[in-house]
Structures are given as structure tokens and as C-alpha cells.
């Protein structure tokens, strides 16, 4: 009785490994888009625009902190496109010649906001209120790899807060994790983008918007990568992002238009 069961279990597991992985349909061009976590919902919708039934283009999204994605690309990850939440990560790739010349373009802007759990009773109306004793934990992205964490650091530095506030910081791996920490009330406040606050409106409320000039402008660049396996399909995705329909989708999620160059 024992042997058949063991044999059958092994057979099922083996079949599982053969059957379950997604089949690679060669007729479809998969375009790998590495994009900042804050772009998740908007890009997924634009992806649906781009992958029309007529075309054979399908985006495969790889969302994460811009710094992590940049490190992956530096390490040779086979991506076609990179969209980051700050110029810095794109500049690093540009400097080492990893971008396809002439494809880099800014396509959206965002605002930095301070959010608190919606059930929070603490009175928080500005970044300066983070010094209050009622605020014991503040979630921000890890400044090493997360652009929203770098913007948060700039804002906190400009708010003239005492050093003690730094001890309240909890570092998250990406901006959506900051949002999650605040939404679950694991922290008392968090610094994210306005667009992320709008994703979970029932669970977080915006307590303050970062004052103008307290951080570098949040501008999102996108570029085709030099080693892109599908450069033409990648350019088509960029075109979809910049199209009226694409920009409308971004606007619906709260992204702002890129400010006109001075």
C-alpha cells in the first residue's frame, strides 16, 4: 500500500513542475518593463491599452523600488524599459551608457504627502507635527534604494525637525510597503506620493502635502535600455505612455503633468 502512494505523489509533483510554469508563446513579443512601484496601477492599465488583441505585444511588468530595479539592470537583467520615480536612478544608468540614445523622456510628475492611518486620532497637519510624542513610528522608503525615501529625507531635513525624529523612522523596501504599513496602522505616519494615498483611500488619510521647494521635483523618466531584446516594441510602449490615452490614465490616478522646462 505504501509504495504506490509514494510513487503517485512523486509523479504528481513532477507533472506539476512541467505543467504549471507559463508557456512561452513565441508568437507574442513580451516587453519587460521595470517600473517604480508607484506606477503599478497606472502602468497595468496602460499595458492593457498597449496589448491590443490585434498586436502581438504583451508587457511583463517588474515593479519595485527604482534603486533595486536600477541595480538589477546594472547587473544585467534582461529588461526592455526602465521607468523610475527619480532622475537619479536613470542618470546612473545613463552615465554608464545603458540607455538607448534618444529614448529617454519624462512622462509624469507627482507630489510627496504625509499620511496617517484613517483611524488615527493624532492631530497631524504638517511635517513639523512628526516631532509630537503621539507619533512614535514614521514609515519612509529606504533612502538607499527608494526615491520616495530620498524625497522624504529632504522634506524632513527642510522641516527643521530635531534629530530625535530620525529615531522614529521605519525603513520600507518600496513606497507601496510604506503605504501598507500606514494602512495597517503598524506605524503612526508615513511619507508617500499623493498617487499612492489615493490607492487605499479608506485606510489612510493625507495629513499634509510637502511644501513647494522642500524636495527635488518628483519627475518620472522612462527610457528604452540599450540591451533591450525588443527595442521597437519597447518604443511602442513608451509611445503608449505618452499618448493622450496613456496620459489620461496617469492623470486619473493622480499623476501630474511634467512641468514645462524653464
Amino acid at each position, binding site marked *: 500500500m505504501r509504495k504506490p502512494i509514494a510513487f503517485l505523489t512523486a509523479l504528481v509533483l513532477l507533472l506539476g513542475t512541467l505543467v504549471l510554469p507559463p508557456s512561452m508563446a513565441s508568437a507574442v513579443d513580451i516587453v519587460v518593463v521595470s517600473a517604480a512601484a508607484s506606477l503599478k496601477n497606472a502602468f497595468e492599465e496602460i499595458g492593457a491599452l498597449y496589448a491590443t488583441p490585434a498586436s502581438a505585444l504583451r508587457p511583463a511588468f517588474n515593479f519595485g523600488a527604482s534603486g*533595486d530595479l536600477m541595480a538589477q539592470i546594472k547587473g544585467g537583467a534582461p529588461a526592455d524599459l526602465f521607468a523610475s520615480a527619480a532622475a537619479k536612478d536613470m542618470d546612473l544608468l545613463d552615465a554608464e551608457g545603458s540607455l538607448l540614445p534618444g529614448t529617454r523622456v519624462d512622462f509624469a510628475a507627482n507630489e510627496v504627502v504625509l499620511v496617517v492611518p484613517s483611524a488615527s486620532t493624532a492631530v497631524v497637519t504638517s511635517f513639523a507635527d512628526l516631532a509630537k510624542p503621539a507619533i512614535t513610528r514614521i514609515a519612509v522608503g*529606504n533612502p*538607499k*534604494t527608494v526615491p520616495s525615501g530620498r524625497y522624504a529625507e529632504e522634506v524632513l531635513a527642510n522641516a527643521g525637525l530635531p534629530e530625535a525624529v530620525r529615531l522614529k523612522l*521605519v*525603513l520600507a523596501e518600496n513606497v507601496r510597503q510604506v503605504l501598507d504599513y500606514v494602512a*495597517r496602522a*503598524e506605524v503612526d505616519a508615513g511619507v508617500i506620493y499623493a498617487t499612492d494615498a489615493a490607492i487605499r483611500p479608506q485606510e489612510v488619510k493625507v495629513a499634509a502635502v510637502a511644501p513647494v521647494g522642500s524636495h527635488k521635483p518628483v519627475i518620472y523618466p522612462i527610457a528604452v535600455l540599450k540591451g533591450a531584446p525588443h527595442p521597437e516594441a519597447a518604443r511602442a510602449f513608451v509611445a503608449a505612455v505618452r499618448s493622450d490615452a496613456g496620459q489620461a490614465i496617469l492623470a486619473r490616478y493622480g499623476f501630474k503633468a511634467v512641468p514645462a522646462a524653464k
Partner: protein
Amino acid sequence: MLDGSALSALGLSLRVAFISTVLVALVGIPAGYFLARRAFSGRELIDALVTLPLVLPPTVVGYYLILVLGRNGFLGAPLYRWTGWSVMFTWQAAVVASFVVALPFMIKTSRAAIETVDRTLLDASYTLGHSEFWTALRVTLPLARRGIAAGAVLSFARAMGEFGATLMLAGNIPGRTNTMPLEIYSAVAGGEWEHAHVLVLLFTGISALALYGANRLTRSSP
């Protein structure tokens, strides 16, 4: 090269691992004893249940820990209501995570060690009129000490190396919950390779030492 943050991460890791191992021993040795010495229906099921964290990926363990101990968690919510304190994002959370993943090591090795103790010696102790508790303390455990010690060393090493569940429950807070595995992860993610080199060498050395110690202890006495 051995800068402040590396030393603080090492100090935190050692502290967390040491406290976890003490707790693991306090819970694991009695648990291993009962699993070894008492036959009851469902014994193997209980054994499988406590061994589960050994085979579950740390992210699944972390998920369950958040579910139970998070601020809105099954136990975390009442705890927060009564004390205003949550274990998330504290160094104690690192201890909890390490405890949960290291406990199976202790239970399994203790159970195995106690099962190999010669029953006739225990029976002799009972016929001399000693209670089970006395026998356990003065006969059973001393005879099983090598296996139990090996279990403790393995638990310590596992507690030192805990990463996934720790990151999920204790988070990444420099100076407070930045155990060595977290610090290494952060360093590599941020491209700080020199910093990572030092930490990795230190960590590999300590783990190798712990394993060597465990091997020496489990070798049967000459």
C-alpha cells in the same frame, strides 16, 4: 572597515540569537521530552506541527507572525488595546521570529537525544522511588546532554541567520532591528559591497564555528 553600524548589527544579532536560544531551550527541551517519553494519540501530528516552521519558507512564517502579532493581529490587537504596545518594528520582534524558526531544531534534536537514553536506567531511577521530574532532571537530560547541546548550537546558528520573517515582523530600522542578515541585504541592495564583505566574512566565520561546535558535541564519546 569594521565600522559602527557593522558592530551594532553584530551586537544586535548576537543579543537576539542568545535570547532566542535561551527561550528555545526553555520551551524546546520540555517539548522534546514529552514527545519522546509520552506516547499519546496525535503525537506525530503535534511533532509535525511544531516542525512546520522548519519547512515553511520564512516569508510564510513572517506572514503568520504578522497575522497574529501585528497591530491588528489576533493577539496583537488585544495587546495593543491593553498596553499601547505593539511588537512590530521592535528588536523583540526579531527575537520572536528567531524563536519560531529555531524551535523546531531544538525539539527535534532533544526528542531524538532523549529517545536514545537507555530506558532501563530511567526505570531503575523510578524503582528507587524518584519522581519523573527528578529523574528527568538528574538522569534523562544529563544522559541526553550532547544531543541537546547540539540542538542549542544549531538553534543559535539558525536564530543568527534568520532573515525573512525578521524583516517582515521587525522591519528595517537602523540601529534597532538591523540584524546582520538584514544589514547585509541592505548593503547589497544599496551597492555598498565593501561594507557587505566585512559583514559576510564575520557572519560566515561565526556560523562555521557554531556548526563545528555542534558536530563535535554530537560525536559519540570516545
